[in-house]
């Protein structure tokens, strides 16, 4: 406190010196003030040195206490570790492999529509769901970079290589801003940006496969995020991405594909208005010491390939709650609940086209996980998806329900074994129901994976 006042006094004196009019009579006084200032500086320095001496003495005395004990482990003295190792620990590389085995009451052709995610187990027998090479780290003081390359073996036994994501993010823009650019998963809801090896179930929700395609919604673009200056976690994401390709299914999907009987044409983005615009607002709170919550809304606007002027809009809301007791071992026990609802409005056919219509679809999924003892998680997911109109023969728009209980065991942080049963009710199936059982195995090599909230 004394020192604080002294520094303040120095400031006042310096201020006064600066303001003092240039007169001959002030010269002497100024000299006196300068001497005073120098004295005070020296005093400060002496005081600091005194503190340092006191600390050193204290350390020496404590080390003395140390020396009196004959504990051999004390051989590692502070001197040994005095050189803090500078590591380049921020470069991360990892490989994760995700495999499944199982079968279903329906054949492989029917499974391709039921298990429409590109990383879902979708064959009677074995599926290499996803082998992912991930590399990331700090590029410099201003950017982080990361890339994920996927290797897969498709139903015909061919190896497929895909650039899943490759993007940069800024590290330290002011005012809570962050930019991200490159090829990336669109931040729409909670599930879409997650990589297959972090999913809580062996397959992706039906409604996401319908609206975003087998690989999830990802494309090339740029987005800004703003961490808002409010008293809770609140973040706004606004972005723009290329609307073309099979990973932006509800927009300019590949020509020749069809939706609701409308064959898609080869349409390119003509101007900036023809790009895919993305928005998300995410909020997070601690409801109590043991319960935390995320709630978000997301929206997408862009052109679609059923005509030359047609557009699609998709909206969604998501809620995530997690309970963890005050005492927990290795993050267990816990209960989490994650729900999302999505709706799509798809203009099919240009004005003047006799088959022009607006396709309306919606769907939801809700899933609960219970980590009942360290390494063990039981899960249950319920899903619904439906399209307006006579859609009963269309596997991509019919009414579908699915119930999926599962059980996961994590032998260590770097591996898991999961057993999941799916009961499907789908209008397009001849029997309208299907039963499937899948066993999944995952391993992770390399960098420590992040603990997802």
């Amino acid at each position: 406190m004394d020192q604080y006042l002294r520094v303040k006094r120095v400031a006042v004196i310096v201020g006064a010196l600066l303001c003092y009019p240039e007169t001959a009579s002030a010269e002497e006084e100024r000299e006196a003030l300068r001497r005073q200032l120098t004295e005070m500086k020296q005093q400060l320095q002496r005081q600091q040195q005194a503190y340092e001496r006191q600390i050193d003495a204290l350390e020496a005395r404590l080390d003395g206490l140390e020396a009196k004990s004959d504990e051999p482990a004390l051989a590692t003295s502070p001197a040994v570790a005095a050189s803090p190792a500078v590591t380049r620990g921020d470069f991360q590389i990892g490989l994760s492999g995700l495999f499944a085995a199982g079968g279903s009451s329906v054949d492989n052709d029917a499974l391709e529509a039921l298990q429409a995610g590109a990383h879902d187990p979708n064959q009677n027998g074995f599926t290499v769901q996803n082998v992912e090479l991930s590399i990331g780290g700090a590029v410099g003081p201003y950017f982080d970079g990361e890339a994920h390359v996927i290797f897969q073996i498709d139903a015909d036994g061919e190896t497929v290589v895909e650039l899943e994501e490759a993007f940069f993010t800024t590290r330290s823009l002011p005012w809570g801003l962050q930019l991200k650019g490159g090829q990336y998963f669109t931040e729409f809801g909670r599930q879409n940006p997650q990589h297959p090896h972090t999913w809580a179930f062996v397959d992706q929700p039906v409604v996401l496969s319908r609206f975003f395609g087998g690989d999830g919604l990802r494309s090339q673009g740029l987005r800004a995020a703003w961490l808002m200056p409010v008293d809770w976690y609140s973040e706004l994401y606004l972005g723009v991405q290329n609307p073309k390709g099979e990973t932006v299914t509800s927009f300019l999907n590949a020509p020749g594909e069809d939706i609701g009987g409308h064959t898609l044409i080869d349409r390119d983005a003509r101007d900036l208005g023809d790009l895919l615009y993305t928005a998300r607002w995410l909020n997070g709170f601690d409801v109590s010491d043991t319960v935390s919550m995320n709630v978000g809304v997301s929206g997408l606007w862009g052109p679609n390939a059923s005509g030359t002027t047609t557009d699609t809009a998709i909206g969604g809301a998501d809620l995530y709650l997690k309970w963890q007791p005050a005492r927990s071992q290795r993050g267990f026990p816990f209960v989490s609940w994650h729900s999302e609802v999505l709706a799509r409005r798809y203009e099919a056919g240009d004005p003047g086209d006799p088959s022009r219509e607006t396709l309306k679809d919606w769907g939801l999924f809700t899933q609960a996980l219970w980590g009942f003892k360290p390494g063990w998680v039981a899960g249950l997911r319920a899903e619904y998806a439906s399209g307006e109109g006579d859609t009963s023969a269309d596997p991509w728009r019919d009414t579908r329900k699915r119930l999926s209980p599962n059980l996961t065991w994590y032998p260590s942080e770097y591996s898991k074994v999961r057993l999941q049963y799916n009961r499907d009710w789908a209008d397009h199936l001849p029997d309208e129901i299907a039963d499937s059982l899948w066993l999944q195995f995952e391993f992770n090599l390399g960098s420590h994976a992040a603990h997802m909230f």
Partner: protein
Amino acid sequence: MEKLFKISIGLLLLVASLATHAALRVVTSTQDVAAIAAAVGGARVQVESLTPGTRDPHFAAAKPSMIHKVSRADLLLVIGADMEIGWLPPLLQAARNARVQPGSPGYLDLSTAVSLLGKVDGPVSRAMGDVHAKGNPHYWLDPRNGLRMAQAIATRMGELDPAHEGDYQQRLKAFGQTMEAKLPAWRAALEPLRDKPVIAYHKSFVYLADAFGFRIVDEVEPKPGIAPSAASLSALITRIRNDGIGLLIMEPYYERRSAIYLHEQTGIRVAVLPQSVGAQPDINSYFDLFDAIVKALNNPGGP
């Protein structure tokens, strides 16, 4: 246009007003560090811990409320040595606060202030379990390391807030004096344990053993982070009997069944030790922590 301009100015002012504040905002990864920072910082700082003392800090997840805290911090104090590896990197990226990024004056890894035990020379394989190659990160359980941490924190606070440097040093001195008074008393109280063999549940008490002179000869976990099996427990029972091991120490958040079983089979006493400030409601300061540990070691309450 004029309206937009006014709103922008208003927003900027709002952001600016939130950015300026009197006290140094200190965020710590654990409650132990928070307790030391509060002792050294006094009224000049505002301290918040990201994880509670009741949980294992290694297994936290980057919660949204943590992003919010880190985004506003002036000083981030972490245990380091990979303790927070699972959640700090994504948290730092999400919080995007340039003041507390590694390498900035506002980021202090306290493992650089102490000498780590259990550094692994040679190759580390995950087949060995959850091994921390950089050294064992539970160093706050040696009170002498607490003083080293306090010293590093006081120096850093003084650098960030030079106007109150003397203040921080004064409080550090008081902290050191209390330590100097308490340490011999704790040592005297634990004299009966000197050189005695002890079993720990997890490899988290090596610093405590080092500070107070007992020997940890085995762990209940067969490999760090790997749950005990029937076979590993029966091997342990043989060892407890053969070597005459009288005490098992463990953190409150581990499962008790293994300890109960070992106690029933061999009569080994079990001391459930608070491993952190906040692990029990009556442990509010770093000194309270050792008072409670010494008490629990002297009167093992059983599993």
